[in-house]
């Protein structure tokens, strides 16, 4: 598929001189950006959903299941994004991220904890000395309806407090009204404000209406320098689905083939069971490939998922079905 873009944009590509990657000129102006994004092939919605559903039927058992559960645990961004978050709750979450199952120290740590910017310092202290990173949502999460200066200040505060990763939301209003360059420039500005922190760009796929828009948003985010593209905030009715995650995985695969730059993917919201998580891992392996089967390149944004993964892990270890009495309530 990417050879087609390459042909179409050969002229643009050869024009590039000091660009960081081959497609940088696509964002030279609002019109080139629109031409590029609207030139992306349309998504076959029925085919996409059928493909996602058929990959969801794979049976993953015994040792493969044990591997998948441990991998999924190591990919969880353990999240608490509530108005009622307290420092105590964030500390408890940090402790859980470092040792998800205190009764079994062979359980891997999660990838990160994900909190609001004002809780970053607390979270950072809670996971100090471990491999667990601290991610912070920023840019007026979840709506993103704030002036750019406020969004950038939000990001800088979070980074200054020690966030290793920033989860930003795009301006869906600008995207849906076709102001792609505005969205692009905002992502570029946030990326710059992030400094060394990795940037995850949230599209809120549930608000983008069409699969074509999700594909366009994915390319837009990657062109602008996202380190991760993320489905949703978890605050709207439709969150991560196998189909929209599959679409984004295809986008990162094609983007790397074309530019050599690898971008991570993070489905978030609505993934509650181990079975679902394993289905997503199958999608990753079959679409993007093994290079993405690592918590540097793939994450789950979730909170209750971890408990189900732990219960399944206990079931595999003991042969008995576990219950919610044996994991922490958060």
């Amino acid at each position: 598929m990417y050879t087609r873009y390459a042909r179409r944009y050969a002229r643009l590509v050869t024009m590039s001189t000091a660009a960081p990657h081959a497609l940088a000129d696509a964002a030279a102006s609002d019109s080139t950006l629109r031409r590029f994004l609207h030139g992306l092939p349309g998504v076959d919605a029925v085919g996409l959903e059928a493909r996602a559903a058929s990959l969801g039927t794979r049976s993953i058992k015994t040792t493969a299941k044990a591997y998948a559960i441990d991998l999924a645990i190591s990919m969880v961004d353990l999240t608490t994004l509530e108005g009622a978050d307290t420092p105590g709750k964030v500390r408890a979450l940090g402790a859980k991220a470092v040792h998800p199952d205190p009764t079994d120290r062979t359980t891997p740590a999660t990838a990160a904890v994900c909190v609001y910017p004002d809780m970053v310092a607390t979270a950072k202290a809670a996971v100090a000395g471990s491999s667990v990173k601290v991610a912070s949502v920023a840019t007026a999460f979840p709506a993103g309806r704030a002036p750019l200066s406020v969004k950038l200040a939000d990001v800088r505060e979070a980074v200054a407090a020690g966030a290793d990763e920033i989860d930003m939301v795009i301006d869906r209003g600008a995207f849906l009204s076709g102001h792609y360059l505005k969205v692009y420039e905002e992502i570029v500005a946030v990326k710059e404000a992030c400094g060394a922190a990795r940037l995850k760009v949230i599209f809120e796929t549930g608000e983008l209406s069409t699969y074509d828009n999700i594909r366009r948003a994915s390319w837009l985010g990657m062109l602008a320098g996202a380190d991760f593209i993320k489905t949703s905030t978890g605050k709207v009715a439709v969150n991560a689905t196998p189909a929209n995650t599959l679409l984004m995985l295809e986008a990162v695969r094609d983007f790397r083939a074309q530019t050599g730059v690898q971008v991570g993917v993070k489905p978030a919201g609505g993934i509650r069971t181990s079975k679902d998580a394993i289905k997503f891992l199958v999608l990753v392996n079959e679409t993007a490939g093994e290079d993405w089967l690592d918590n540097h390149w793939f994450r789950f944004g979730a909170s209750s998922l971890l408990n189900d993964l732990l219960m399944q892990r206990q079931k595999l270890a003991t042969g008995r079905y576990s219950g919610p009495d044996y994991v922490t309530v958060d």
Partner: protein
Amino acid sequence: MSDKTGKTEQNRLSVFKTYKLYVGGKFPRSESGRVYEVTDSQGNWLANAPLSSRKDARDAVVAARKAFGGWSGATAYNRGQVLYRVAEMLEGRRGQFVHEVADAEGLSKSKAAAQVDAAIDRWVWYAGWTDKIAQVVGGGNPVAGPYFNLSSPEPTGVVAVLAPQESSFLGLVSVIAPVIATGNTAVVVASERSPLPALSLGEVLATSDVPGGVVNVLSGRTAEIAAPLAAHQDVNAIDLAGADEILAKELEIAAADNLKRVLRPQPVDDWSATPGIDRMTAFLETKTVWHPTGSLGASGSAY
């Protein structure tokens, strides 16, 4: 005219019933897709029933756990009304149950009818108990101190019930009703040889105000389904009425791991005899609270 009607009836194709499980208020087939043949006492085929797997058992426990908060939190009066409603619904489908019980147990129509009537009366009997059991087994305890001391019975949680193998309907009702009357939720493993009355009972429960998940009915091999239930860490108690001696021992060992309450199989010669309250108290836990009286005033112990 009558001749014509007779002819059409003869030519009419049989409409067989697909018996399905009752889990979480829905009627799924077994996750495994398996069924087994159910025969009457003479060995004639009656229907195919779902042959449940351990995953069906797991799903049923999840449904029962989800329903527990609402059911145990409902007022005892309300639970009584709901159970009485079950009896009303059963009365309306009496003919169907008489037919199924007669086939399953090889009884004459009149004996089967007596069984069904006794089962309906049993629902009514337990419906009456819901708001009285607390007065009988709970109470205010006299203590030598300036305290109120109150004991109240509370439901244990999710109870796995292995229904009696022989009495396919009266026995079944006699083990389910006491469990849910006291506010527990149940995962019921129907009689292995004659599960049809139990599966039909699911249809009655679904239409009688009992919230989905309060009773979940599984059919299949008792030993196969009971093993994961007995070992399940999120099942709080198990009634072994339908297990034979060897199976009961195995299950009791498996159940010890999370300290389940276990009701051992007790020989019941006549299910129609008045059951007493033992089956209700078996799955109740007594909670005792100490509460200082106001009589001390500011001068006494502030505890």
